[in-house]
């Protein structure tokens, strides 16, 4: 009998096993929903699949009578726009600051303790400050995500830069690299894959901050909608929205991983 650690599932087997927990969750939901609806046909907690399908159709394919918009797409577009702008700004700040901290000791001395302190500020605690200073518009929401994510990316990239072997940096200098060339041609290119990893790991946080900001002050967005319909216990809206957000986040994550493999094949080889 081989050891358990040496037993490998086949490709198809692994796929089937991977689908299994999802099926179990679905079955548990169905059973629970049926049981509750049998007792009380007006139960709102676990709506039936037909109710869910009907609501999804209303939100995803029909124009809202009041605003004239198809709500799911309007919300998705509003949220994704905020998220992508914020992640783009965070990546730019993180890359620039991480590279500087990682490569120039004097600037590291100036910036590293400050960034370390800023990254410890709980972003949600200063959300009121952002709303007071920047108003209730888009700026405050984007700023919240940037404040939450950029310091983490900065520190991660600075750590990565510090991990580069000293031998490599000395070697580059013996090939005639100036500080500038060392930063731009040796350190920066080796930070790109890590930047993508950092973005992937921070996706969850970014969504958290986005939904928090939308829940408090917004007129559209996935987070706004969830918190709006919460008042009516509209689980038939909330559950599909949560599933949709999860799918979007999962898709973004997959896209980033794919981009990393395509753009930086050397980083895959070096693993």
């Amino acid at each position, binding site marked *: 009998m081989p050891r358990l650690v040496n037993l490998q599932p086949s490709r198809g087997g692994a796929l089937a096993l991977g689908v299994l927990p999802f099926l179990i969750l679905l079955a548990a939901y169905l059973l629970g929903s049926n049981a509750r609806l049998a007792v009380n046909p007006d139960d709102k907690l676990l709506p039936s699949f037909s109710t869910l399908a009907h609501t999804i159709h209303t939100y995803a394919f029909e124009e809202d009578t009041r605003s004239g918009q198809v709500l799911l797409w309007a919300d998705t577009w509003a949220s994704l726009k905020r998220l992508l702008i914020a992640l783009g700004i965070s990546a730019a700040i993180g890359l620039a600051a991480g590279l500087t901290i990682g490569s120039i000791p004097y600037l590291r001395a100036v910036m590293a303790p400050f960034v370390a302190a800023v990254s410890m500020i709980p972003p949600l605690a200063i959300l009121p400050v952002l709303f007071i200073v920047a108003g209730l518009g888009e700026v405050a929401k984007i700023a919240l995500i940037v404040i939450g994510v950029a310091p983490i990316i900065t520190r991660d990239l600075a750590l990565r830069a510090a991990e580069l072997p000293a031998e490599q940096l000395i070697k*580059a200098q013996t090939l005639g690299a100036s500080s500038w060339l060392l930063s731009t041609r040796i350190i920066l290119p080796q930070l790109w894959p890590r930047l993508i990893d950092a973005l992937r790991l921070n996706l969850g946080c970014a969504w958290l901050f986005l939904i928090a900001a939308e829940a408090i002050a917004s007129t559209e967005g996935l987070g706004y909608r969830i918190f709006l319909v919460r008042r009516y216990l509209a689980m038939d809206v909330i559950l599909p929205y949560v599933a949709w957000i999860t799918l979007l986040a999962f898709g973004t994550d997959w896209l980033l991983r794919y981009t990393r493999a395509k753009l930086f094949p050397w*980083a895959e080889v070096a693993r």
Partner: protein
Amino acid sequence: MAAVTVKRLWKEYGEQVVLENLNLEIADREFVTIVGASGCGKTTFLRMLLGVDKPTRGQLLIDGQPVPAEPGPDRGIVFQRYSLFPHLTVLQNLLLGPQFAGSRVIGRLFGAKQRAAREKADALLEAIGLHTARDKYPAQLSGGMQQRLSIAQSVICEPKILLLDEPFGALDPGITADMHAIVLKLWAMNRMTIFMISHDIKESFQLGTRLLVFDKRRHDPQSPEAYGATVTYDIPLKRTAA
């Protein structure tokens, strides 16, 4: 020209004496091999030539001038590991030196300059037997191939001095003969003085034109850090510069 003069050189880290009273005259184009027990200052000596460590007292001169306080393209280095850039292919690794020299802002060459650098790089790749692997990344190469590339990467900058810090220490004994042939070939192709640290006495005798043994002359059992190492044997070897 790259003659190295060492005059009454001491290196201390706090209380610990690493090197004491080192005196040497190394002629241009010498192939100096250095052996000695670990921790006796061989690498420290190399690091001072490289410019990343400073002598505590005494002089370390290249052609009569003090060694610059920073590494530069006149002194190449090959470490035991980590001398290559994992994000660049073999060819790109090799082109790095010419690109840095020819373009201070973007570090890339175009047109005639690029073609000249490519030709030089191609010739070197041929010489070290890596022309078929030019588009591979370092992680896809064997240890021996990586070290050959690292040596060529330094040589393409035409350094006056090439420093080798146990370059073959991590390699299979079986392939060191090939490595030796390549080092000697590159040494013959370029006018440079070579300092090579080795653990392998036989290799040191075979390759060098001069063998230095670093060791401590005096020992204080109560405080082992009190005395540093110096050159205890300085053996000129028969073979002259090729």
